[in-house]
């Protein structure tokens, strides 16, 4: 039976057992969100990940492949100037991964859009073998919420990606007492966990008075903590402390999956 406390030991288990991906040490890594279900918090987690790498001074290349999310809520909205917008609905598909890695980036953070499944799966079918042979590893980030559709989405992706990627699943508590029954107790999700042994992280519920203005103005938790903003509703001392607290705990969660997030 699944136990949420297994998250802490998941990475250790992963390293103890034979890898489900490549046995050779990768030199570069592409971290991509498993798009499919919109509004589950893919971009929020990628933002936290980008900030975490930034805090450790690890260079990353940010790619916004979310063609549906035009402005607000997209990765570009938060990191404008540092984010490359990529249209994956072309013949070249996700070849942008290869080009950016060739330019020297050791890590790519790719925020996939809600309708990116088919293109991504086809790209993996045709390109994975040769790209992986150059020392590139892939980590797929799945975000689950109490909504069963979010679980179905990552199971569908996993059925196509199989063991060509490592899996990190983030439980995003979108409400105060989130119920993850469909993720924790469904037979299909259990089978997924048994086969791929994903590292499971938690992203706790955030107060709407912090989350909503942050989204509206495109600011990260780090920017709120540093008080560099001219947004009155985000300058309240309690919210700044809240932001700092969320950020610290989220970084601790991310740290649990470092083996699957670093090259």
């Amino acid at each position, binding site marked *: 039976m699944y136990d949420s406390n297994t998250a802490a030991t998941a990475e250790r288990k992963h390293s103890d057992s034979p890898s489900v991906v490549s046995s050779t040490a990768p030199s570069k890594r592409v971290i991509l969100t498993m798009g499919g279900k919109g509004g589950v918090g893919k971009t929020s987690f990628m933002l936290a990940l980008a900030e975490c790498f930034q805090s450790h001074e690890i260079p990353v290349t940010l790619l916004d492949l979310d063609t549906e999310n035009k402005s607000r809520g997209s990765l570009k909205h938060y990191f404008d100037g540092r984010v490359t917008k990529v249209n994956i609905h072309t013949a070249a598909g996700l070849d942008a991964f290869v080009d950016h890695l060739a330019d020297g980036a050791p890590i790519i953070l790719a925020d996939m859009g809600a309708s990116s499944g088919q293109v991504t799966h086809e790209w993996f079918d045709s390109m994975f073998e040769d790209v992986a042979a150059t020392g590139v590893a892939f980590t797929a980030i799945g975000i689950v919420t109490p909504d069963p559709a979010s679980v*179905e989405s990552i199971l569908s992706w996993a059925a196509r990606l*199989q*063991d060509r990627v490592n899996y990190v699943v983030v439980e995003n508590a979108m409400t105060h007492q989130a119920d993850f*029954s469909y993720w924790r*107790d469904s037979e*299909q999700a259990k*089978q997924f966990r048994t086969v791929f042994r994903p590292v499971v992280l938690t992203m706790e519920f955030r107060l709407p008075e912090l989350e909503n203005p942050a989204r509206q103005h495109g600011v990260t938790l780090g920017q709120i903590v540093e008080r560099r903003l001219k947004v009155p509703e985000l300058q309240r001392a309690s919210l700044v402390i809240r932001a700092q607290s969320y950020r610290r705990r989220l970084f601790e969660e991310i740290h649990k999956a470092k083996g699957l997030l670093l090259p």
Partner: protein
Amino acid sequence: MDDKFEAILNSLPAKEPRSRLEPYSELITEMRKRGRSYREITQVLKKACGLKVGASTVNDFVLARSKSKAKASLSTSRRTATKKNMEGLTGTYNDTEAHQSIRRPRKALEVIAKTIKALKDRPLKTPAKKLLFEYNPDEPLRLHRNQRTKE
């Protein structure tokens, strides 16, 4: 060939060229090599030789000649290749020094035969890898709660 047939063939009158352009074949070929267009060639033929033909006729003539040349060349190379293959595989055509140089020892022939067999036995496509995880999106998620949750 039989001497009788040879005599018959020799007695036949020379066949008239099928194309009016035949006498100018060398000139046309040279002009094409020098990058002249078919239209320009027709103008030269008209002015210099008094021959009035269309550009498409010249085009057909050049194509027909290049095809027949290619056919003759292919035929020659096929004959050569066949002979060489026979020599290489059987080692029987060893009457000249050149042929002797490409004779293969028996051991080498066995290696080639093994390579050919291995290539034939190799499957055309890598068999599809067994899926580690299968999921049917049309089926609802089946909740399977533990004892503690049921209570």
